[in-house]
C-alpha cells in the first residue's frame, strides 16, 4: 500500500527524467566550458601579472648599478673630466633613471593587478581636495584655474580612487603647460541615473583617432621631449575603474583640451549585469 505509489512515482519521474537529463547535460557542458574558459583566463592573467611583477622587480638592481657606476665614474674622474665624456656619462645616468621610473610604474601596475578593491562610501570632494593640495605648488606658480563642482559620495576604494584623481589631475596639470590660461574642471553629470565624474582641461588634447591608445600601457601620444612620462598613468586609471566595474572614456581634440569621464559600478548595477 505504501510502496506501490512510490514505485509508480519513480517510474513517472524516470520517464520525465530522460528528457530533462539530456537538457541538463547540454547545459552543464556549456557551463563547464564557460567555467574552464574563465578559469584558464584567470590563470593566464595571474601568470602574466606574476611575470610582470618579477621582471620589473628583477630589473631594479641592474638599473641602479648602471646609474650608480656612471655616477661613481664621474666623481672619480673629477675635474680632469673631458666635457664630452661628462655629457655621455650624464646620458647614461638619465637613461637609467628613466628606465628606473618606468620599471617602478610597471611594478605599480602589476601590484594593482593583485590588489582587490575594498569599496566603502567615499566623499570624492575630499579626495579631489587632497590631490589638488599635493599639486598646489605648480597650480599656484602657473596660475592654473581649478573649478571643482559638487561630487557625490560614491561606493569605491578610497586609496585606489585617490590614485585615479592623482593621475588624471597631474595629467591635466602637465598637458596644460602650453595653455595661456590653463583651466582644469572637475565635475559630475548624471546620465541614465548614473553619476558620471569628469576631469577636463584646456591643454594640448589629442586626436580622437588615437583614443583607443590612451588607456594602453606604454602608449604615448606626445614626444618625450614635450611631455615627460612613461605612458602608464592612464593604464593604471583604467584598470582601477575596471576593478570598480565602471567604465572610462575620453573626448579630446588637438589643442582644444581633453576630458576624461568615468562611472563606478554599484552593487545594484552589478546584480543587474550578473542576472542579465
Amino acid at each position, binding site marked *: 500500500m505504501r510502496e506501490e505509489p512510490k514505485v509508480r512515482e519513480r517510474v513517472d519521474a524516470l520517464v520525465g527524467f530522460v528528457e530533462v537529463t539530456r537538457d541538463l547535460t547540454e547545459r552543464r557542458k556549456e557551463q563547464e566550458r564557460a567555467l574552464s574558459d574563465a578559469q584558464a583566463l584567470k590563470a593566464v592573467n595571474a601568470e602574466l601579472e606574476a611575470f610582470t611583477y618579477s621582471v620589473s622587480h628583477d630589473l*631594479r*638592481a641592474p638599473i*641602479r*648599478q648602471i*646609474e650608480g657606476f656612471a655616477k661613481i665614474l664621474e666623481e672619480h674622474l673629477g675635474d680632469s673630466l673631458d666635457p664630452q665624456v661628462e655629457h655621455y656619462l650624464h646620458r647614461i*645616468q638619465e637613461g637609467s633613471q628613466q628606465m*628606473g621610473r618606468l620599471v617602478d610604474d610597471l611594478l605599480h601596475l602589476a601590484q594593482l593587478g593583485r590588489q582587490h578593491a575594498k569599496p566603502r562610501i567615499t566623499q570624492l570632494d575630499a579626495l579631489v581636495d587632497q590631490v589638488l593640495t599635493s599639486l598646489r605648488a605648480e597650480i599656484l606658480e602657473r596660475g592654473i584655474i581649478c573649478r571643482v563642482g559638487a561630487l557625490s559620495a560614491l561606493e569605491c576604494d578610497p586609496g585606489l580612487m585617490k590614485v585615479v584623481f592623482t593621475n588624471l589631475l597631474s595629467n591635466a596639470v602637465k598637458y596644460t603647460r602650453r595653455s595661456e590660461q590653463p583651466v582644469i574642471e572637475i565635475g559630475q553629470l548624471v546620465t541614465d541615473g548614473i553619476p558620471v565624474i569628469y576631469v577636463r582641461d584646456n591643454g594640448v588634447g589629442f586626436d580622437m583617432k588615437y583614443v583607443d591608445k590612451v588607456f594602453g600601457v606604454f602608449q604615448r601620444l606626445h614626444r618625450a621631449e614635450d611631455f615627460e612620462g612613461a605612458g602608464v598613468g592612464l593604464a593604471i586609471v583604467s584598470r582601477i575603474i575596471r576593478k570598480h566595474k565602471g567604465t572610462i572614456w575620453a573626448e579630446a581634440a588637438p589643442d582644444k583640451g581633453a576630458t576624461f569621464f568615468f562611472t563606478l559600478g554599484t552593487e545594484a548595477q552589478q546584480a543587474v549585469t550578473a542576472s542579465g
Partner: protein
Amino acid sequence: MNSAHIQMLLAEDSASDGDLILASLAKVSLAEATHVVHDGVETLDFVFCRGEYADRSNEPPLRVIVLDVKLPKLDGFEVLREIKAHSRTRLIPIVLLTSSNIDADIARGYLLGANSYVQKPVNFEQFRETIRQLGLYWMTTNEAPPSKHLAERLRPAPE
C-alpha cells in the same frame, strides 16, 4: 685574518651591489670596517668562526649584520633564524637589506627577529643616502649590544 676592526658584516651575493654599498660606505669612512660575504653559508661561517673563518676571533663583537634576503645556498631568512637561535649571537643587530617590499617578506623578517628592514631604492642617489644613513646609524649612533658575558648571563630558558 685580522678582523679586529670589522664592525659590519655585509652579506651580499651581487658583486655590483656589494661595490656600490662599499662605495657608499666609503663616503662616510665606514668601508674599512665592513667585511663582505657572498652567500648564506659563508655568512654563518663568519659569524660562528668556523670553516674558512675558524681563526677569526669573536672580539670585538660585530655591531651589525646586513643581510640580503636573496642569498645563495641559505637565504637571508634561514641565516637570520640561525643567528637568532644561538645565545652567543642572538643579540647582534640584523638589518635585512633587500629589493623586496612585499608585506609577507617584511613580516617574516620581523617575526624571525630582524632589527630593521630596509628596501634598496632603485634610484642610485637615494640608494647611496640610504646606505650612508644605515652605516652611520648602526656603526656609530646605535649602542652596540652588551658584551659576550652579559649576553650569556641574559640567556633565556632553552626553547
